[in-house]
């Protein structure tokens, strides 16, 4: 049978993340079972992605409001995700929009090379921020802390 060799071959069983993630065959609950992380942390990461993908600016304003209200939240995990998403939204937004505008202003709108460099720069950085956001969202969903590569503030030891 397939299961036996696979288990024999496995380097090691991984401990379950949390007991609350255990699924039952009778009563699976999409929200509770699939998202054991704190809703505020998940919301922060979701707003980070919404700002990038669906509602630019509006998503950012909502994220800032969330941060203003909950920045002293007792849960370090919630504070971690709020701090990371706010910091990366501000820094990322600046280098994404600011440098793109700079490329066009310096190169000129009627210069094809401004478009080649500007569009490629914007698309690549934008996509990278989304991928980092996906990792952040997953960390929040699974109740893990997360630091955005390069732009995210350092995590406390």
């Amino acid at each position, binding site marked *: 049978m397939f299961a036996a060799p696979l288990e*024999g071959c496995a380097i090691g069983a991984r401990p379950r993340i949390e007991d609350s993630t255990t699924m039952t065959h009778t009563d699976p609950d999409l929200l509770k079972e699939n998202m054991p992380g704190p809703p505020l942390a998940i919301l922060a990461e979701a707003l980070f992605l919404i700002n990038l993908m669906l509602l630019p600016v509006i998503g950012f304003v909502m994220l800032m409001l969330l941060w203003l209200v909950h920045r002293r939240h007792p849960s370090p995990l919630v504070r971690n995700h709020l701090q990371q998403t706010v910091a990366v939204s501000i820094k990322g937004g600046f280098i994404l929009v600011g440098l793109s505008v700079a490329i066009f202003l310096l190169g000129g709108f009627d210069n*094809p090379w401004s478009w080649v460099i500007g569009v490629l720069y914007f698309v690549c950085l934008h996509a990278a921020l989304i991928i980092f956001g996906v990792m952040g969202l*997953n960390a929040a969903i699974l109740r893990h802390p997360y630091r955005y590569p390069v732009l995210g503030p350092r995590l406390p030891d």
Partner: protein
Amino acid sequence: MKYKSQAVAMPYFIAAIGLFVAQIVFGLILGMQYVVGDFLFPEIPFNVARMVHTNLLIVWLLFGFMGAAYYMVPEESETELFSPRLALAMFWVFLIAGALTIIGYLTVDYATLAKYTGNDILATMGREFLEQPLLTKIGIVVVALVFLFNITMTVLKGRKTAISVVLLLGLWGLAIFFLFSFYNPTNLVLDKYYWWWVVHLWVEGVWELIMAALLAFVLIKVTGVDREVIEKWLYVIIALALVTGIIGTGHHYYWIGTPEYWQWWGSIFSALEPIPFFAMTVFAFNMVNRRRREHPNKAAVLWALGTGVMAFLGAGVWGFLHTLAPVNYYTHGSQITAAHGHMAFYGAYVMVVITIISYAMPILRGRACNSPKAQVLEMWSFWLMTIAMVFITLFLTAAGILQVWLQRVAEEPMSFMAVQDQVALFYWMREWSGVVFFIGLLAYVASFFVKGKEQPAGA
């Protein structure tokens, strides 16, 4: 392996990889012809090389999908395949028909091929991706019907799971939409309209279901996450794919003579098309992060994660880049489309087929996983091919933006061929990236032959 009949998947996988190699060889020839126009002319003209390159892609992916289905369905249905003999017979029919078609493309001029294969009885040839002669198209339908009969009967006699049902839905959709390749109205607008029912509703419709099912199957196996969790993700992904993808067909109808409302419908729905790919990325990362065991087949896990990311980038981000009607007005049919096509096909379909091959092949060869040495080489091939594809996409995007400017935006627009000279530098860089991709592919093939300390099945 759990069921003997799963073994029929192996020849399909081997043929898929062989044809993949051939596809990339023709890709390199084509890339060279972009910069050295008479390279291999008249032996392999550009139009023939392009046709072989794209047709081989479709054929090898179909071999991969069929192999994947023959491997997955017995395990999902917990029963032997309805008829392994039929599956093997169809393998040879499909392989021989495919090989004869490619030989036909390369040895006979296209008009003569059309004349001798019955195109005057029912004209179906001459359209991009659907260049196959009538006989080949009929062969594809026969193979697809027998394949679907075999797979459906297997599912019907065994356990029905969400994964096998979604896979079946995707495969039936694939066969049904291919039937529109036989409808070739003389009105060019109608012709294009229905041509997209094959091409678009395949790659941005039913193929996404197949992809999601394959990914879900492999993720259940390599992560140990409960089936219920993965199945719920699967429902969300396929719902998003169909809701956005079907009306998203409208992004192909902007400038072909269809009513103007398609510019709104196409823009709105295809702007939403990145969402299922985004969900797939979250899905893949989420499942791997919550895994309950460290699966020894690290290469398969890497391919699965890579599929999520690259499908989102290629199909989602690069698709969105030129999908809105006001943008597409300028970018339509430029190298930006080629950039999107390359990364989307690689990220979504090439990688998912390699994911299932990477997972299943060691088991089909009687071991639970390949040796660490072989896996390291396979992971090298992953990075080489993936990074090379990123660069191919970036260079083609740069070429496309410059092309759009010089050909369609500049105050004194240049002709198509004059612009091709202007973007040649990017074509050269694309060609070198293609060489790196080919080296990655050779490394992938070599990984099958690397010996080492393997973990035998049953150990």
